[in-house]
């Protein structure tokens, strides 16, 4: 039951959901395995996606779709690429490498390097997505949906959701994103070449501005500020020394560890204060 999290500053996702379930909450507490509750949480996740993330996805994948057309792959391959790879940067690398005629094993290597970031992202969400008795296949299906947008939207919201609703909420969120990304890949494929270059530049800018704003919104504690700041600052510093896609991993490990250590210092100081 979301009763425990009802308060002034509970996440917006729960406030929306509360409107839908107030009556239910007053009559009978939903059991964890209650299917209507799962459907409702799925709906709440979907609605969360429909607020802004779906539009962001759509704008980003317009670009991916038109890149696919440029790469000369069929529409089917373009759509399967979105649904299977489900990671914008990896798709851009895959399609870009096809355009330049890069050998396939080399493509696989750069795709894999760009997707290393999915590892810590998945690990940080999995404790909220798994449940005793859930089949490993369903867990794998769930974890397949972790990508930058779904991570940024759920990492701070999901802990506030009652454990029984988390998986359904996440599925609702990501299937909303799927829908818009798929539709936008299709639209981008159809529109390719018709977009002025300036518009194309605008589409490519959606990702960075949205991610930064979403990361800022997720900030709760000093560790978040530090991780964000270190990540931004370290990238230009490390880039000249570490190349070939490994620079990001280094930025993540060094910046993240420094932020984590910084948080411990802050906590120790707070504890010492009377």
């Amino acid at each position, binding site marked *: 039951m979301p009763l425990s999290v009802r308060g002034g500053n509970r996440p917006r996702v729960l406030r929306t959901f509360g409107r839908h379930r107030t009556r239910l909450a007053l009559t009978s507490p939903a059991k964890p395995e209650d299917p209507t509750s799962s459907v409702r949480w799925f709906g709440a996740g979907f609605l969360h996606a429909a607020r*802004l993330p779906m539009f*962001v996805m759509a704008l980003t994948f317009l670009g991916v779709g038109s*890149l696919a057309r440029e790469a000369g792959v*069929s529409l089917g*391959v373009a759509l399967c*690429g979105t649904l*299977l*790879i489900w*990671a914008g940067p*990896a*798709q*851009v690398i895959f399609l870009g490498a096809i355009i330049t005629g890069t050998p*396939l*094993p080399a493509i*696989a290597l750069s*795709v894999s390097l760009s*997707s290393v*970031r999915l*590892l*810590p992202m*998945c*690990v940080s969400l*999995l*404790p909220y997505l798994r449940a005793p008795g859930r089949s*490993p296949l369903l867990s*794998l299906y769930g*974890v397949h949906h*972790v990508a930058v947008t779904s991570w940024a939207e759920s*990492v701070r919201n999901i802990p506030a959701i009652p454990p029984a609703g988390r998986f359904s909420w996440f599925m609702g969120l990501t299937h909303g994103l799927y829908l818009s990304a798929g539709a936008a890949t299709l639209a981008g494929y159809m529109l390719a070449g018709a977009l002025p270059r*300036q*518009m*194309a*530049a*605008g589409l*490519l*800018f*959606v*990702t*960075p501005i949205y*991610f*930064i*704003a979403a*990361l800022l*919104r*997720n900030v709760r504690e000093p560790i*978040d500020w530090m*991780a964000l*700041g*270190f*990540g*931004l600052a*370290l*990238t230009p510093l490390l*880039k000249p020394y570490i190349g070939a896609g490994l620079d*990001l*991993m280094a930025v*993540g490990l060094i*910046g993240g560890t420094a*932020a*984590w250590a910084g948080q411990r210092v802050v906590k120790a100081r707070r504890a010492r204060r009377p």
Partner: protein
Amino acid sequence: MSFADWSGGLWPYVALVLFGFLPSEAWRFLSIFLARGVDEGSEILEWVRAVSTALLAGVVANILITPSGALASVPTGARLAAMGFGLAAYFVFRRSVIGAVVAGEAAILAAAWWFS
């Protein structure tokens, strides 16, 4: 062995799965095993979350410093200024992600037309 050699029938799809899907999905698959000992509220989860946040910030910084495609035709200074404008809007509109995206987009589109 390039993508063009795998044309016809289902071969492009096989190439997509082998050289696009699997190399990317492997990390998600691996995470299931690595997350086994990680519990909600644990210190290691805090660390993993910080690493992910720093990584994503790095992704953004990368796009800003070395953009690909059409975004590269906008000068670096203008890209950074548009980002700054978007972030200012985020705070002006009281922590609004939508505000940041709309303002940042307006700025980058203006810059793209100005410098074209």
